[in-house]
């Protein structure tokens, strides 16, 4: 359907002919991970052999609780260190790069538990996101003339983003006074202040009321329209189906499947990962009879 292709952009079109198998190479990967392993004692939380994330599309990372999605996020963004493995962003190695440098390179994340800076105003939260601020160095901070001009530019960009995210009326309120959903919006807007090329959202919909969900979905799609790449962790399958161009499924630390949403969701391996094998196989008449008589025998035994 040509209309569909224009809606999801050129990046998604490039994914059209790809084989749906774990670790499949992408035509234009922005992020490539190889052999990333993280162990907590005896537990291997993450063991990703190979994963590529296509530029300019929305990729969903799904999987049951404890699959290692957030740990994988932490590893990629420098918030945790893997035991083994290499990964590269825009062709440059990221292994061992501290989290703040990862962000400066244009790979910015949000958190599952929203981290609004409560005792700072919404506007100050936004200002903090801007990189390369002259006034953030100790000595230049003492001379307002050095940084006030740049600050005005930052403020303008911050207010534009706040208008887009419908938070402009709250600009001078403490971030701690926002509702859960507004905090999610603020965190996303703040991440955009860094001017990222890859936005990594950890459960952007968790705890957001349904009325806000649609607007959040719209914002995530906007990111793609503006040429950014989005990688997000989510549990809500409807959302995943709605906005993602490509879905990666993790279970027990490994990538067990990847492909377009429709293909992946029909994949038996994925259903198994979520619900366990044979979860919905119907009972045969014989099995039912056997269970019934077993239960009866137990009852009889109880009376005796």
């Amino acid at each position, binding site marked *: 359907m040509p209309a569909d292709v224009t809606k999801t952009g050129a990046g998604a079109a490039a994914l059209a002919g790809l084989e749906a198998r774990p670790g499949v190479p992408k035509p234009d990967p922005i992020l490539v991970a190889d052999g990333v392993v993280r162990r907590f004692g005896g537990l291997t939380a993450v063991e990703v052999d190979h994963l590529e994330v296509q530029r300019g599309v929305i990729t969903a990372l799904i999987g049951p609780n404890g699959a290692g999605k957030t740990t994988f996020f932490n590893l990629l963004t420098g918030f945790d260190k893997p035991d083994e493995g290499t990964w590269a962003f825009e062709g440059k190695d990221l292994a061992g790069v501290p989290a703040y440098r990862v*962000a400066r390179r244009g790979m*910015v994340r949000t958190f599952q538990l929203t981290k609004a800076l409560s005792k700072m105003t919404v506007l100050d939260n936004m200002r903090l996101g801007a990189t390369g601020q002259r006034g953030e160095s100790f000595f230049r901070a003492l001379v307002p003339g050095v940084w006030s001009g740049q600050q005005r530019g930052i403020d303008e960009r911050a207010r534009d983003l706040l208008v887009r995210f419908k938070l402009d009326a709250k600009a001078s309120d403490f971030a701690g006074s926002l509702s859960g959903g507004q905090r999610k919006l603020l965190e996303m807007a703040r991440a955009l202040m860094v001017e990222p090329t890859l936005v990594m959202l950890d459960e952007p919909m968790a705890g957001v009321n349904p009325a806000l969900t649609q607007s959040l979905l719209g914002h995530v799609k906007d990111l793609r329209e503006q040429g950014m790449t989005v990688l997000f962790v989510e549990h809500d399958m409807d959302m995943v189906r709605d906005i993602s161009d490509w879905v990666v499924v993790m279970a027990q630390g490994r990538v067990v499947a990847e492909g377009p949403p429709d293909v992946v969701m029909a994949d038996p391996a994925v259903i198994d990962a979520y619900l366990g094998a044979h979860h919905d196989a119907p009972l045969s008449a014989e099995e039912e009879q056997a269970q019934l008589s077993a239960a009866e025998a137990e009852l009889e035994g109880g009376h005796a």
Partner: protein
Amino acid sequence: MDFGVIFDRSVFALFADQSLILALAAIGLNVHFGYTGLLNFGQVGFAAMGAYGIASGVTYLELPFGVSLLLGIALAVLLALLLGVPTLRLRADYLAIVTIASSEVIRLTARSAEFREQTGGSSGLGGFAQGFYDLNPFGPGSYGIGPASYDSNRFFLLVVGWTLVVLCSLLVFLLMRSPWGRVLRGIREDEDAVRSLGKNVVGYKMQSLILGGVFGAFSGFAFALANSSVQPDNYGTQFTFLAFAAMILGGAGRVIGPVVGAILFQTLLVLVENVLIEAKGAGYISDAVLSGNDIGAVRFVLVGVVLMALMIFRPQGLFGDKKELALDAR
């Protein structure tokens, strides 16, 4: 009971050297705790660095007075680096443990017989303050207003000291309204969020530790010069906790908070002490209830009760914003 004496002594205490010392230490703690969220329980270690910097600098190394001031500041910066490099990457509580331990290590090292030559051991050092008081432009006599009058040398110290308090507060004011201060406040709220926005969190925490530590060294200068001597046992943990009390009384994270807090706290101590002394002198309190020797300890108990009441009814401190505190409960 002579209320005139109580009043005079309390007014004298308002801007006396104890308030000055406490104010400088509390300004430093405010940078650490109030703005950056660093739990520094060893502010006295920085004060000791300043005090021994000038004392040992003048007497043992025979440096000029001005150079030993620089030595004191350099030692405080060095201490901040030593404490910060291993602990600032860890959770906040590790810094608390390391700082409180290190401040005791410094005190015990300074009073050890091993370093008697450099630090004077348990009896401390004296005879280093002349370089400072030589600069005194005020002639002999008494200066000040009414009961708040001081002799020439003391007055000189207070003028220099309170000017320093104003300058330090101004510096904090300028820094905290700048983008640099914004990063610090962000770190206080959630350092991972700030890290995810591309800020070198460890670097900022280190800068904060150094800045507040240098203010701590200033308070050590004032302490050493006010007594014209350095006694190691004056640099125990109680110094840090009095500074914490002063900062929280005034309001953490406010420029003026630690200064007003220090003045009020110290004046309150003197007021309570003198009320007790006068009441005892007039026979209102019998020896069975309180002996004269216990007044020094009981004043801390009473001021502690006042502080507790303050924390219950005004937990944000005198200058704090109640709205900010309400956010913590969410």
